[in-house]
Structure formats: structure tokens, C-alpha cells
């Protein structure tokens, strides 16, 4: 099949990037990486990109195709040819470009290191091994699939606005250790993720889940950490207090108490009288003294209380990692 790509080219001394067009005759089974290899072999040896394993394991060949991050080795080209598309191939987003399709991964690894992706133990290590139950492994199964390719980070909308945001890859890695039954650094990890550029920066755009080529679902991992921070009563961050208003109002009135959101999340913002008046004038500020109430409110109140009790049991499990057996056979 004939495949045409437009590839974004960039050299460190260039003022801006340019698009080069290449057409190759590739086999039907060709992936994007195969096509790039063919271009490099046959047409332009200076084309620069990363690759290694060619089987979606090493995480080297993350790049964008028509603006969406993909692993080049996992992207079949036949469907695009059938659709008659001429895709634009460009480097991943949210990371500085070094040359052509190669980005500088150092900011990515810096955030990775910041979440301390190693086991924290107390006391002596086991002589033989830790025994982890299947259900404990299941808790972090998805997070453990990460190959650190950066596809999730490439499209993180929050990171575009806050480059210091720890982001989906590092936070999914943090979740992998928060949920590890052998790890003893859980509270320290939760405090770290509860910081200025931590979980509450996530805007829930779900680009990370959409782009991840391994099914890690980083947004869900971020939510797991947020849930544990909340369960531990760590409400110092505005993000956690924002969630508390939703929780509280769902059983206090059944509807979101919109007028409580601003003063409770961020009391300083409640002083923005000009903005508040604009909202009132447009009819966008419901009367706080006469909140909208759902019918059958007793049901949700009882439900919240009942589930709260069950949540406590599950939290106790997470705190202790009780079912880990230390086997001290000599």
C-alpha cells in the first residue's frame, strides 16, 4: 500500500519547525514505526525518532499522529490508508523538542523521581519473599502496566496550563505504590500527592485514559489517590474541600449547594463581590437560605451513612496492608 506521511521536522538551531512529506510503498501490515524506518532507510537518513523494542513494551516511540499521542510501533497504517488520510506526525506535547520527533524526557523523569517510585519498608526486609494476595495485586494491576512512554503526559490539558503539575504518568506510578500492600510509605505518598501540583490539579479531561496504549487509565489512578486522601480526612487542599461540598450537599439537600462551593472551597474568592453580583444579576446564584431540596431525601441520607460505615472497613484494610505475610525462612 502507498502511505504518505507529513512529518514535522525540527533542528535545534531552527527558529521553527517545518513539515516534510514522504510517500513509501509499505506492506499492508506496516505500523507507523515500520513506515518511519522505511523513510529513514530509503529516503532521508537524517529523520530522527526514538525506538527500541518494536512491540509496545519499551515505551520509546511515543509521538503524535494528527495531534493524538500514539506508540508508533502499535499504530497500524492500513486503516488510515483506507480512509484516505495523510496524517501529520509530530513530537509529543508538554515536553521540549530536541530534534524532529525526539522530545527531552527529563521533565517526565523528574516528576517520576518526585513520587519516589520504590518500595518503602520498615524494619528488615524479608529473608525470602513478601507474599501478596491476588486481590491485593488486583488493586494495582492496571497501574503496574505503565511502560513510561509519555503518551498520557503529551495530551494532559492541566499540564499545558501548569507545567509543574506532576501529571498522569507520575501520579499513576504514585498510585501503584500507594496501593502496594508491601509499601509502608502510604501516608507520606498521600501527603506528597496532596501538594500544590498534585492530584487536585487534574481537570478530568480524560485524555490520559484515552491515549494510554497499555490500559493504565491514569485518570482513574489519580482518582484512587484523591479518594484515599479524602478518606483520611486530609482536607487542607481546596480540591479536597471542593469535593467535600459535593459529598455533603448530595445528602443534605440532594442537590449541589452551589452557593456553598465558593466560600467553603476558597473563602478568599467569596470576597470577589463584583463577580458574585454579576452571577446574582443573571439569576445564576440560587438563594442560599432556601436551597432546592430533593424528595425522598431520607433515602440518600441513610445511604450515605450506611456506605460510610462500609468505607471505614475498606480504609482500615488499606492502612495496614493486613494480609501481607512476611516469610522469615532462613
Amino acid at each position: 500500500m502507498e502511505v504518505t506521511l507529513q512529518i514535522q521536522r525540527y533542528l535545534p538551531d531552527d527558529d521553527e519547525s517545518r513539515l516534510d512529506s514522504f510517500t513509501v510503498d509499505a506492506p499492508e501490515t506496516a505500523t507507523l514505526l515500520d513506515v518511519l524506518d522505511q523513510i529513514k532507510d530509503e529516503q532521508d537518513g537524517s529523520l530522527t525518532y526514538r525506538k527500541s523494542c518494536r512491540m509496545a513494551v519499551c515505551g520509546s516511540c511515543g509521538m503524535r499522529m494528527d495531534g493524538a499521542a500514539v506508540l508508533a510501533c502499535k499504530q497500524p497504517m492500513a486503516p488510515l490508508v483506507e480512509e484516505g488520510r495523510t496524517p501529520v506526525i509530530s513530537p509529543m506535547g508538554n515536553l521540549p523538542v530536541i530534534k524532529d520527533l525526539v522530545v527531552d524526557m527529563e521533565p517526565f523523569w523528574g516528576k517520576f523521581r518526585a513520587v519516589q517510585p520504590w518500595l518503602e519498608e520498615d524494619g528488615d526486609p524479608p529473608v525470602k519473599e513478601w507474599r501478596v494476595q491476588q486481590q491485593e495485586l488486583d488493586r494495582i494491576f492496571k497501574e503496574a502496566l505503565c511502560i513510561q512512554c509519555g503518551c498520557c503526559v503529551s495530551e494532559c490539558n492541566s499540564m499545558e496550563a501548569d507545567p509543574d503539575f506532576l501529571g498522569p504518568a507520575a501520579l499513576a506510578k504514585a498510585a501503584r505504590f500507594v496501593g502496594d500492600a508491601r509499601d509502608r510509605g502510604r501516608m507520606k505518598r498521600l501527603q506528597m500527592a496532596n501538594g500544590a501540583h498534585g492530584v487536585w490539579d487534574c481537570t478530568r479531561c480524560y485524555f490520559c485514559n484515552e491515549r494510554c496504549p497499555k490500559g493504565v487509565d491514569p485518570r482513574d489512578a489519580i482518582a484512587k489517590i484523591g479518594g484515599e486522601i479524602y478518606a483520611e480526612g486530609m482536607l487542607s487542599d481546596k480540591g479536597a474541600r471542593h469535593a467535600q461540598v459535593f459529598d455533603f450537599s448530595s445528602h443534605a439537600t440532594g442537590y449541589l449547594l452551589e452557593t456553598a462551593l465558593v466560600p467553603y472551597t476558597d473563602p478568599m474568592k467569596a470576597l470577589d463581590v463584583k463577580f458574585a453580583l454579576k452571577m446574582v444579576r443573571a439569576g445564576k446564584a440560587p438563594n442560599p437560605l432556601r436551597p432546592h431540596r430533593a424528595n425522598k431525601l431520607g433515602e440518600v441520607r441513610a445511604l450515605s451513612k450506611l456506605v460510610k460505615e462500609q468505607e471505614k472497613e475498606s480504609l482500615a484494610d488499606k492502612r495496614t496492608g493486613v494480609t501481607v505475610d512476611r516469610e522469615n525462612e532462613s
Partner: protein
Amino acid sequence: MKSSYAYYPGCLASLSQKELDTSTRAVAERLGFSLVEIPGFTCCGAGDVHEARPEYYLHLNARILGQAEQLEQDTIMTICNVCTLNLRQANHKLREDAELLARVNKNLAEVGAATYSGGVEVRHLLWEIAEGDGYEKLKQVAERPLTGIRIAPFYGCQILRPSKLLGFEDPDRPQSLERIITACGAEPVDYPSKIKCCGFPIVLAREEVALGELIQPLAEAQAAGADAMVTPCPLCHLSLDAWQGKAAREADIDFDMPILHLAQLVGAAAGLSYDELLFKRHLVRTDRLTDKIYAETTQ
């Protein structure tokens, strides 16, 4: 043709974004959709309860799904992206895990709430009028074409992603809003960030980050020459409309972009009046747009 839905307006359309609920009801009447009220529905918990108390979130949404079932409705119609994802995600989890469904139902029964057997679909208004019979009906009711008006679609996140839970259309190249804009006689305006985030979920906790996200679609839609933007989500609407002034100051760009709810766009093309669609409840004045729409009729 499907015509009866359990109607779930959610919190925002019931409270601050009342113009969305009012417009939806008016438009549904024109389209021949019968919206059945769900007595005693509550908040779906939004992304916040979903994150903070995932178990409770599941129960809240199972209760809503069960209430629809009790009304003998097989489909819930939503008008908010966040409600759509929340209800669909809960529905997915409950349907694929019989043990979980049984545990949740036991709790629901214990507090006297409706239990859920797994027989309800959750569909956004957008999907019901973007294809099939609903789309044909839309073309029929759009009797006042919005000729010469350029509208930038803004999808919002949780109607597109995660696509394995939403899955109505290609999340990277959606066309449903464009089809509806065209059916309403207006011209869709394309711009890159129409599928990106408006920043609303963190606008109170991280205003500077949220505004950074919000500026991009506003600036691109304005540069592309849009007369207005339209969104299927009341959260995106609030962000684009109410926070537009702050975004303008932050970006030092003079934004003047009226923001339409999807139901208002359809309503205007269906001949509903300015007052019926409650355009006066917007923070960014819609006059520049609505004067054009209603030029030949009295408001």
C-alpha cells in the same frame, strides 16, 4: 422512533443553569420527546464524589438508574456531560459485575430505595438528535434556519472521553455538533481545541490552571470568526460564559463570545423566542447574536 425518556436534568440545569432545563423542555416538546420526571432524583455526585467516595458515588447513581427503571423507562436522557459519564460509568460497572450489583442493591433495599436490575441506557440529548430518527425530526423542526451565523462547537471532555464508556463517535474527530449546527441552518466553525477541556472542574480549586485551559478554545473560536459557541454541557457553559471575563483579563484579549446551550441553538432554529430560551440569563450578552437571529421577528 424512541419518544419517551426518564429525564435527568442534574443539579446545574435545575439550579444556576435553569435556562438549559427550560430550553430542553421546550425543544423536547417540538421534537416529540416525552420527558418523564424522576421524582426524588439527586445529584450524580459529579467528578468530586466519584473521586472522593467512589462507593457512595456508585450507590447514588445506582439509585437514579433504579428510579428510572421503576418508572418503566429504558432510557435516561441527560443534558450534562458530567452526569452522562457518571451515570454511564456506574451503569457499566454494575452491569458487568453481578456481585457488585447485588451488594449495591442490598444497601439500596436496606434504606428503602429503588433497586436496579441493569436495564437502563443513559443517552445525552446530543446523541438523540445527531443521528437517526431524532436527526430527521430535528431537520423538520428547524424551520427558522440560522442562515449566515457562524457557530463554533465546543464538545467538552466527558461526552467524548473515555470513549470506551461514551463511544458515540470518534473522540478525536467528532461531528455530532457540526451536523446539528448545519441542520439548524448555521455554519459550523472548526478550530483545534473544540475537544479540549474548559477547566471548569478545577476553576475554584485551581483558578489559574483552569483559566489557562479556558483561554485556548475562546481565543481559537474568536480567531476563527465564530459568532457564538455552542456546548452540550452546562459546566462548560458556565466556564465559557461566566468565567469569560476573567479569562479575557488573564489573556489580555477582548473576548466577546456568546455561549449557547445545545438546546438553545436547536430552540432558536425551531422558532422558540428569546424569552422562551432565557437568553437573558447569560453573563456574556447574546445581543450580537440574538439580534441577528430574531431580526425579522419581535423578541
